[in-house]
């Protein structure tokens, strides 16, 4: 246990923790929204995120080539924007596919909720494995040579050729705050505010809240539940795409099972904040990211996940429905 280390480096640990937490939060939104309208844990949401990270890397390879270089954040701004769009599109498409293939048939048949969970677990395995076998898939289609840069050794770590070299922007308490961390935190806050406003202000957002509150009355009032559900998946996918881009900025590498750990963490964040609650997801993500970093500083990095889960259990004991409680339309509809 090393509390003095935590105290001495609290600024650095807080900021890097917030940046990580911001990514958790963006992914958590997908879990929380789908849970809000369907009361289902979308176990495959982690793969929605993972496909986004690949979209980012592929855009970089496509535009930049495979030579590995270091770049500043500013120098890659254009490319990043492009890959953000690509990642959002990719993740949204995967989310939509999930809804169509793994959920809608079950909802139609009124299958028990546990069965939907199994379907989601299956979809998660299948999507992840598909990414891990992409060299074979491309090989069957006969495109192996053309697409080699995108395929690579499918199970290996796939890395963005451009490494973003963070620059110090200003110094707080002896720690030089990096532009990358600021960018990650600010960008995810912006996304979150945009989504929050969207759900609050638009007709579609009202639809989501209505379905979350009471699907039957929503249907009576003329809300098309199927469209709302699909839209919810897409919105979650877009947020996951944004998370994927930020993740690639910060970490720079991904692999076919990269979604798993982040998915578990993001789901934890969603529950921590109060599942179904958008602002709760944000708060949950940030709290989790910072707590993990503090825990790693005090107990050693290997205990970081334990810190996260123990925190979850403790918070649920005190507040059984998460920090901010549950609501997607419920409390403030």
């Amino acid at each position: 246990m090393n509390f003095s280390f935590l105290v001495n480096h609290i600024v650095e640990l807080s900021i890097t923790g917030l940046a990580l937490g911001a990514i958790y939060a963006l992914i958590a939104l997908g879990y929380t929204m789908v849970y809000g309208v369907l009361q289902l844990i979308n176990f495959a949401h982690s793969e929605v995120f993972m496909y986004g990270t690949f979209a980012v890397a592929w855009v970089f390879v496509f535009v930049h080539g495979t030579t590995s270089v270091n770049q500043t954040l500013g120098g890659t701004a254009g490319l990043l924007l492009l890959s953000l769009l690509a990642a959002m599109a990719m993740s949204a498409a995967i989310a939509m596919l999930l809804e169509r293939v793994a959920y809608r048939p079950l909802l139609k048949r009124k299958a028990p909720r546990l069965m939907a969970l199994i379907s989601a677990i299956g979809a998660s395995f299948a999507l992840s494995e598909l990414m891990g076998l992409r060299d074979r898939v491309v090989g069957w289609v006969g495109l192996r040579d053309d697409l080699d840069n995108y395929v690579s050794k499918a199970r290996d770590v796939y890395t963005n050729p451009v490494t973003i070299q963070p620059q110090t922007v200003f110094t707080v308490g002896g720690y030089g705050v990096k532009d990358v961390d600021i960018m990650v935190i600010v960008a995810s806050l912006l996304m979150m505010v945009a989504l929050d406003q969207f759900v609050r202000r638009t007709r579609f957002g009202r639809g989501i809240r209505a379905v979350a509150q009471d699907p039957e009355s929503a249907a009576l009032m003329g809300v098309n539940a199927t469209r709302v559900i699909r839209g919810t998946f897409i919105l979650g996918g877009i947020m996951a795409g944004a998370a994927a881009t930020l993740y690639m900025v910060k970490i720079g590498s991904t692999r076919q099972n990269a979604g798993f750990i982040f998915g578990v963490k993001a789901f934890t964040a969603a529950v921590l904040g109060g599942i179904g609650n958008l602002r709760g997801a944000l708060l949950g993500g940030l709290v989790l990211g910072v707590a993990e970093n503090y825990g790693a500083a005090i107990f050693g990095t290997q205990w970081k996940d334990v810190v996260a889960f123990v925190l979850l259990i403790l918070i649920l004991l005190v507040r059984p429905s998460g920090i901010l409680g549950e609501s997607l339309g419920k409390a403030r509809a």
Partner: protein
Amino acid sequence: MNRTTRVWRAGAVVLAAGLALTACGSDDSSGDGSSSGGDCTEQNLAFLGALTGDAGALGVNMANGIQLAVDEYNEDAECEVGLKKFDSQGSPDKAPALATEIVGDDTIIGLVGPGFSGESLATGKTFFEAGLPSISPSATNVTITEQGWTTWHRVIGNDNAQGAADAKYLTDTVGASKVYVIDDAQDYSKGLATVVKDTLGDTAVGYDEIQVGQTDMSATVTKVTAAKSDAVFYGGYYTEAGLLVKQLRQAGWRGTFMSGDGAEDPAFVKVAGQAGNGAVLSAPAAPAPEDFAAKVKDDTGSEAGLYTTQSYDAANIFLEALKAGNTEPKDINDFIGSYSGDGVSGPISFDDKGDIETSTIYAYMVKDGELDTENPTAIE
């Protein structure tokens, strides 16, 4: 080295048998093990290791080396020897049932493997109790040869040798005075890192553990930079090693990064990018000599890779035992125990625990965004 597949372990499962996938990716045991002559009984070598899964590439390297040795032997042998391959996916949970299958097969006269330390520990007893001699080309964990399994051998230096050499390299060659030691809490990694840490003594200024699969290293980076260390030793595998060195460089850390054979892989550079430059990766193995590499390519159609030479040498010891007229497990085991010769990977003889007597540790450098696998420096 002791990699086991991490996530897709125990239950890679097929539920629907009827799904038409028969056409693709079948990886049966390729050895037909057929006997050519009239009074030859069928005899096979077995290989046990990961052929698929995350570590599959390494197992394929090994299988290629064995295949080459077997093919060379069969060219002018009276009775041909086959090769049966058993895919453990590197998992200690899968390996015991495979080991049972191997010892239940009377045609198998010896085992090259197991590939990794975890599966070695899980199966050692089975092979020992069944009296099947084995030679591992790649399992380096120190404790395996401390079990009293007299049928177990390896043609590669163990982690003690490597850790001591790495620590020496850091202090003598690099001239580091403050080394931060990190590992990923896996058996292999921790063993190696602990030897390095203990050898370094006071020069090791800090210690942290990360988790396999972790991608954000910020807390560890803070620790390393806060300790003002001029070198980092990492015990673990290339993915986390690459991410770690990258994030250290991103935070402006300028010391020397060193890791062991778990990271000695071209993929390390892929993950680390330009940040990998200057990194030192050690391994208890020299690169394959050129003419040998050519033979491998010729015979199997694949490149020689890590552990191909060791596997070739291990297989050859069994084949020489056969040539010398040994067919009973006990005779073969005695033959291995007293064996002494020069393999492609170096001089080979075993001490009474089954460890190789002399092994050299090599340091491989990363330069200009590439791992130089051709010209390592031997650490004395």
